[in-house]
């Protein structure tokens, strides 16, 4: 059992957890992820490692409540324990010295770029982080990103903070202004990663994305997470999750993410009903 040491409720159904997982913390590297299973009969879900402390033996995860499992997880508190936490999985992010990095994180994707940007900073690379949210209140990890980036540029959909627009709006500007950059990193919803890739391709800037297909085991034994990169079938869990964006088949990834949509919907409906019934009972009892 893996104890939740800290749990914070952030905006937009995003939750931050600090979990005791010493084996993972000892080995974690930027770009890697863990697989969680909340309880017996629960499903296995992949979550990116946002941070870790090898000495304390803890890992930090940011999770967005989108389906039954993440919704259940959002109801857990510090002191509760998660049944299974395993990893670290995936190949660590490709970090080369002497490069200028521009990293884009949308919404809770910012948590995923955080350790990678930090790794670049630690080896002396210049780092610019473009972070975005729908509005100022929904922005996460701004302070953490400022601490590890040479520059932070902000975009909000409604213009309540920073540039009005998307993270890609800022990137477009940077590319048009011919601002120097060697590698672009984008992590977020697939539409966002694809937009970044399409944008940088004509400029020939190396672009890396972290793909998020459906996963189950994480060890490369089931093939659920298969993606096509440069016409080759790859497993995101062991060959990635980071890939060269310009040769990723994003359309296929988007299609395959829908593979279990009807089941996910069904699962949520049943769960929400149970929650309703529970609340009704508690209210009735009172």
């Amino acid at each position, binding site marked *: 059992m893996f104890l939740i040491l800290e749990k914070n409720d952030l905006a937009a159904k995003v939750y931050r957890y600090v979990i005791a997982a010493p*084996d993972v913390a000892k080995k974690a590297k930027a770009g890697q992820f863990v697989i969680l299973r909340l309880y017996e009969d629960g499903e296995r879900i992949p979550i990116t490692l946002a941070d870790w402390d090898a000495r304390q033996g803890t890992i930090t995860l940011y999770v967005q409540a989108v389906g039954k499992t993440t919704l259940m997880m959002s109801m857990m508190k510090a002191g509760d324990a998660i049944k*299974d936490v395993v*990893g670290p999985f995936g190949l660590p992010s490709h970090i080369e010295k002497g490069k200028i990095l521009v990293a884009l994180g949308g919404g809770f994707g910012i948590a995923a770029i955080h350790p990678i940007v930090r790794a670049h900073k630690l080896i002396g690379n210049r780092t610019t982080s473009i972070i975005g949210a729908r509005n100022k209140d929904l922005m996460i990890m701004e302070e953490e990103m400022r601490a590890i980036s040479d520059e932070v540029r902000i975009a909000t959909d409604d213009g309540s903070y920073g540039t009005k627009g998307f993270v890609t709006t800022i990137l477009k500007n940077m590319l048009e202004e011919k601002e120097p950059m060697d590698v672009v990193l984008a992590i977020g919803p697939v539409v966002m990663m694809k937009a970044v890739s399409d944008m940088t391709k004509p400029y020939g800037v190396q672009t890396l994305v972290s793909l998020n297909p459906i996963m189950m085991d994480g060890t490369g*034994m089931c093939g*659920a997470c298969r993606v*096509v990169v440069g016409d080759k079938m790859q497993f995101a869990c062991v060959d990635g999750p980071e890939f060269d964006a310009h040769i990723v088949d994003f359309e*296929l990834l988007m299609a395959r993410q829908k593979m279990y949509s009807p089941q996910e919907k069904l699962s949520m409906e049943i769960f929400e009903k149970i929650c309703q019934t529970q609340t009704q009972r508690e209210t009735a009892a009172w």
Partner: protein
Amino acid sequence: MSSDVSTQERKKLTNKERMKIPRHPMPEQDPLQRAANFLEVPLGYTPEMAMEEAERCLQCKDPKCVAGCPVNVQIPEFIYHVATGNFKLAAQKLKEDNALPAVCGRVCPQEEQCEVVCTIGARVEPVAVGRLERFVADWERSSGTIEIPTLPPPTGKKIAIIGAGPAGLTCAGDLAKLGHSVTIFEALHKAGGVLVYGIPEFRLPKKIVEAEVNYVEKLGVEIKCDFVVGMTRTIDELMTEDGFDAIFIGTGAGLPYFLGVPGENLNGVYSANEFLTRVNLMKGYDFPNNADTPVPMAKRVAVIGGGNTAMDAARTARRLPWTEKAYIIYRRSQVEMPARKEEIHHGEQEGVEFLLLTNPTRFLGKDGWLVGMECQKMELGEPDASGRRRPVPIKGSEFVIDVEAAIVATGNGSNPLINKTTPGLQTNKHGNIIADEGGKTSREGVWAGGDIVIGAATVIKAMGAGKKAAQSIHEYVIAKKT
């Protein structure tokens, strides 16, 4: 006969009389009933049936069955004890050589191992060794009197086993019985390997695997799940930093092969590993009410392949309540199918439809979802490298079968994780670890056995390799200075 023979004696029958006793059929769940549930198909012998079946054994002076068994179970001896009703002694004898008898009694291809060389098999049906093994193991488990042997004093040597599948569990058990400190590292959240993720509930109930795993733990073996050697820790780290004196790699054949035909990435095309793991290990047959892992919900499912994995997938699909049709698509004919005849027979009874001499050429989709498979009829030509007649496509025989799910069960390769993270570990071009008779690899202190060495094979072969490696490892660590 060994010295610990029961004081009771079998009935005094002549060999002729013994051979006249017909092989006792195995009671089974009714096919139509069982096609809708995940309970075990064979129900097991009663004590009376077992004792009667045990009387058929001639107690040959030179028993061929023992050599036919990959772990050399002392078959005539344990059968004798069954005949005299001394099931406890039968269990002890059985477990001297076989660590997982409840598993083997269910999944071993006895028809290729012990039973095929049975002396009486030349004239009548062989003794039902497998069913007797299952009976004894089940009896012991339900009697609640599982014996733990007295362990020798600790040797102080530490051995790491990678993978809690049949090879690893067997190797661990044998090493623990020799007094060593053993830790099994398992990547998944549950021990058992293919016994829990691959073989379905109706062939091998998970409660049984749990009991077998508990037995290994009672021998003092520590099982650490959620631990991926190669990621969480490398083999080098285990040896140089964590103080392990030797390593046994039993990581199995966990790399799914796909066909390489167009449309393979459509939603609805799954590897057998994905399908079986979702339904078995993750209890997807109980989705959504009691398990959270979603499973494919297709009306018509085609399983491509002809081995035990394909049969498992087809019979599993058949049982899911929304399945209307479950097909086996195989490019040769039934006699060439590698699956156990018993499983093919059970599948037929349960309503699995067989499209033989048929090969898929492409998957057809609409809006990213599988809607059908284009197939070609085949005919058998000259034998190929495997000795079986080569399937040759018949020109102009293309046809389309409408399906919403396709499960590719055409074989598994070796999961490359250990190879990639263990420098100096020699593998062949398929990624199988090269090991000698006793399982020794090219790395000092590192052994390997099971599917990771020989490619996808059987539970019992993996166990045999685990046994041999345990002996080889034991000799090595005892001789080691520090």
